[in-house]
């Protein structure tokens, strides 16, 4: 089969690979019909996430049709079922899964010992990601083996198209969880840093959860235009001071709730010297992340406010203003997404027509064009916001 394979920094190729095989009775094989390139795939593309290995298959946003099931799937899935595969692999049985904390499932990471060493305790196995989270082959491929398939799936009814359903596997529940974690009240101003796909989902989720005001921050005109279309007031940080404008919009109080949908690769600009220093340190491996956005959020967030971080951070960050964080009594909530905790509700909202996540798709191409689309997406060329690949 064809698959997009990681060969090293900025080197993804469309390779011919062997087909995946059922290994365990709870496995299923899915024929992928649609998959997407996610912002966090770019961190892998740049080799900023440790423990990727040449030969790893990329992709953690995918859906398709079940073509084979193991004997232990117990009728939960059958051939021909149309499913979205969540990026977090879940057993559904461990203590964390029973609590709904699916992204920290205690069972599914097959490199648990490595994760225990690095994170202190293991987290769930993830598709198409680092070997710290199991190194499971991803879904930017024609076929995908889904471990623990009896639990790791979201069934999609026929009335919902691939485009509407695909993002239930990651960015939609990620944006939703980011907003839910903010405990939004009807009087709240919610600011979202980064108008990439997760930022777009976050700001729409904040609106659906009843925020009084949603503010979106970025410097790419098309992303800001899309955010504005979704009901946000926009701030272009190339044109105005984020802090001054946010204070102006919130009567000098600062936003009540802040969402960092940017993560470890904050924009680098001489106007913000800390971003240059972070980049230099990142290059010399003295710091793994560039947390400019997080610093700005801690500074501008209203005292007593909540900071929600759906953006990916990988390791170590410097110069985090813990003094401001502590004295302002801010709450930070973060984590990989507990996808299955939210998907029943979100699928219902899609079916009811409350939201259609396909708005974010700007490019749909065959799988073979995937490698070059990584560059297009990374460089924000051709007004690219979200790429869907068709195997």
């Amino acid at each position: 089969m064809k698959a997009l394979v990681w060969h090293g920094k900025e080197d993804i190729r469309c390779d011919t690979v062997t087909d995946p095989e059922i290994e365990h009775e709870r496995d299923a094989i899915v024929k992928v019909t649609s998959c997407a390139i996610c912002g966090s795939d770019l961190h892998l593309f740049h080799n900023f996430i440790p423990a990727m290995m040449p030969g790893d298959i990329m992709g953690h946003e995918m859906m398709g049709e079940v073509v084979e099931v193991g004997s232990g799937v117990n009728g939960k899935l059958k051939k021909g079922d149309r499913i979205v595969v969540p990026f977090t692999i879940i057993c559904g049985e461990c203590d964390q899964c029973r609590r709904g904390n699916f992204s920290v499932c205690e069972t599914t990471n097959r490199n648990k010992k490595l994760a225990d060493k690095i994170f202190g305790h293991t987290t769930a196995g993830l598709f198409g990601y680092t070997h710290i989270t199991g190194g499971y082959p991803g879904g930017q491929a024609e076929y995908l083996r889904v471990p623990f398939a009896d639990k790791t799936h979201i069934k999609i009814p026929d009335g919902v198209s691939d485009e509407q359903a695909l993002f239930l596997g990651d960015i939609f529940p990620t944006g939703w969880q980011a907003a839910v974690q903010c405990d939004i009240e009807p009087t709240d101003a919610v600011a979202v840093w980064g108008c990439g796909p997760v930022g777009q989902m976050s700001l729409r989720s904040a609106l659906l959860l009843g925020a009084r005001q949603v503010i979106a921050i970025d410097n790419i005109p098309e992303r800001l235009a899309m955010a504005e279309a979704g009901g946000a007031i926009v701030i272009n940080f190339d044109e105005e001071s984020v802090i001054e404008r946010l204070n102006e919009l919130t009567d000098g109080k600062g936003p009540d709730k802040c969402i960092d949908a940017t993560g470890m690769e904050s924009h680098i600009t001489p106007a913000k010297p800390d971003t240059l220093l972070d980049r230099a340190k990142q290059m010399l491996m003295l710091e793994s992340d560039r947390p400019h956005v997080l610093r700005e959020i801690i500074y501008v967030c209203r005292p007593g406010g909540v900071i929600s971080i759906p953006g990916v951070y990988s390791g170590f960050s410097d110069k985090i203003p813990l003094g401001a964080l502590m004295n302002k009594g801010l709450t930070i909530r973060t984590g990989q997404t507990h996808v299955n905790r939210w998907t029943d509700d979100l699928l219902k909202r899609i079916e009811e027509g409350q939201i259609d996540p396909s708005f974010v798709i700007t490019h749909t191409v065959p799988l073979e064009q995937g490698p070059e689309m990584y560059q297009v997406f990374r460089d924000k060329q051709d007004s690219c916001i979200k790429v869907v690949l068709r195997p």
Partner: protein
Amino acid sequence: MYFLSNIVRSAGDPKIIRSGPSLRTRTDRLAHALGWLGIGLGAIELFAPQRITRPLGMRGSEALVRVFGVREIFSGIMSLSVDKQAGLWSRVAGDGLDIAALLAQLRIGNPRKGNVSLALLMVGGIALLDYMAAQDLAAQSSSRVGRRRLYADRSGFPRGIEAARAGAKQLTSKRAALTAS
């Protein structure tokens, strides 16, 4: 390399049969080679500056050569990173400094003038490669810019934003009623 990494994969995981074309262009590979060259040369300048100063008749300038070594290493690391274009331009600037320092050694009293001329020739050649690679990378990225579109019609709310806000209001008042009861 992926043959080695297959050790960590399970039996049912897909393995590469035939590799597709690499995303790395010739310029990317040149930038990579220049980056490693810079790191190697920089390490010699930093840790064994006399190996540079002696043949060029520059005894006493070891400190300067060490500083150049640090600069060379940093530019090299930058050329290997995702910001390779900035790395290559910093190498071009560094080449300028190298050439200026070497030209200063072409003074009449230097008995190693021949070596200095040779070094100038080498630095000039490398400077040309650095410049060409930096230019090619710039051209490479500008060739993919594409057309600019705005997405002002993409609300994501099939029933419109006002309906979404109204739905949210209903939800929050329901939530408030539940809390009150």
